[in-house]
């Protein structure tokens, strides 16, 4: 059975859909992000990020994305934005910063676009 059955129905350009397949691929990485709610775990993560990733069972691609703070790759490899955001918060990054990364606009232009009423399709 295809794992992406029905993908056509939700193939909206520029719109990642966190579905069951993404969640299955991203489970270990998302669990790592969830652990960062706790100060003690943040300290352990920052002490040796690669070891922490291996402890949680990330794939090599996911580990690289986390170590490189490649936010788009984390989403592509099964990260849920609400979980990925835990890592961004730990780094002192805002959702506007992430918006600047995902759109390629940069944080300042993204924030300006939001304050001007948000972005539109087309």
């Amino acid at each position, binding site marked *: 059975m295809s794992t992406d059955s029905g993908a056509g*129905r939700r193939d909206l350009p520029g719109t990642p859909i966190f579905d069951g397949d993404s969640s299955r691929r991203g489970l270990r990485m998302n669990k790592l992000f969830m652990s960062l709610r706790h100060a003690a775990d943040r300290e352990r993560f920052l002490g040796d990020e690669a070891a922490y990733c291996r402890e949680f069972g990330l794939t090599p691609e996911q580990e690289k994305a986390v170590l490189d703070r490649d936010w788009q790759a984390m989403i592509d490899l099964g990260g849920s934005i609400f979980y990925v955001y835990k890592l961004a918060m730990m780094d002192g990054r805002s959702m506007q910063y992430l918006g600047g990364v995902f759109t390629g606009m940069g944080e300042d232009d993204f924030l300006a676009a939001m304050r001007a009423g948000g972005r539109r399709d087309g």
Partner: protein
Amino acid sequence: MAEVIWGLATSHVPSIGAAMDRGKTDDPNWKALFDGYAPARAWLAEHRPDVAIVVYNDHANGIDLDFVPTFGLGTAERYEVADEGFGRRPVPDVIGHPELSLHLVESLIDDDFDLTVFQELQVDHGFTVPLSVWTPDPGDSWPCPVIPLLVNVIQYPQPTAARCWALGQALGRAIRSYPEDITVGVLGTGGMSHQLAGARAGFINPDFDHMWMETIETDPAKLATLSREELITQAGSEGIELIMWLVMRGAMDDQVTKVHSDYFVPASNTAAGIALWENRAPQPAA
């Protein structure tokens, strides 16, 4: 019998809570949002229910991706405010109402809604920000006991809009069948249009939001026909949270009277909406 006296729909963006917690409500980027809350807050302060039900979703704080309940209801005596990573919000823990919760669970399951039951649950901004929108200065406790009703909106497939609407209608029946004469406020949270990830991040659709705001009052069953794909296309991937407004609206009568509504862009990356309805038909002008 218990009676729904009002329904409040509101966005639950974490930065709204942060702006309040950090005393930034008069900041030029925020003032219009909070000014827009004032009439609803004033009315709500005069119409305190005995119990409130908050229809909301968790964001990686109270529950993990180990299990993703499509619908869940809390039955606890108390719900602790979650630490989402950098200290919990400086707001009171939530006192529950286990007797009404257990009645709702039984009534809803008998009405074919097989809810997950939470005996322990930490509540995050999805829950506490709407309470703060209602009550900016709760002091030591929120105005009344509050029951969480969880909806999965973050992992596809979310429940359909039609199912949320039907759940709301069943919730209304369940509330009305509670034997005690108590009053209930229902909060539907999340939305309005927004998208956080992807090249389309920052998407806002004011036309859709205004249509939704109008139609949820006058013809909510029409909104219940929207598919997930239509919602994500029109409101953005996170705008699908609006299905939680349909649960709230379903628990109310066919005809309701609007007390106040307002719309503000942006609260972070989100179009923030608030709408408050009294649960009774419009009264003819005197």
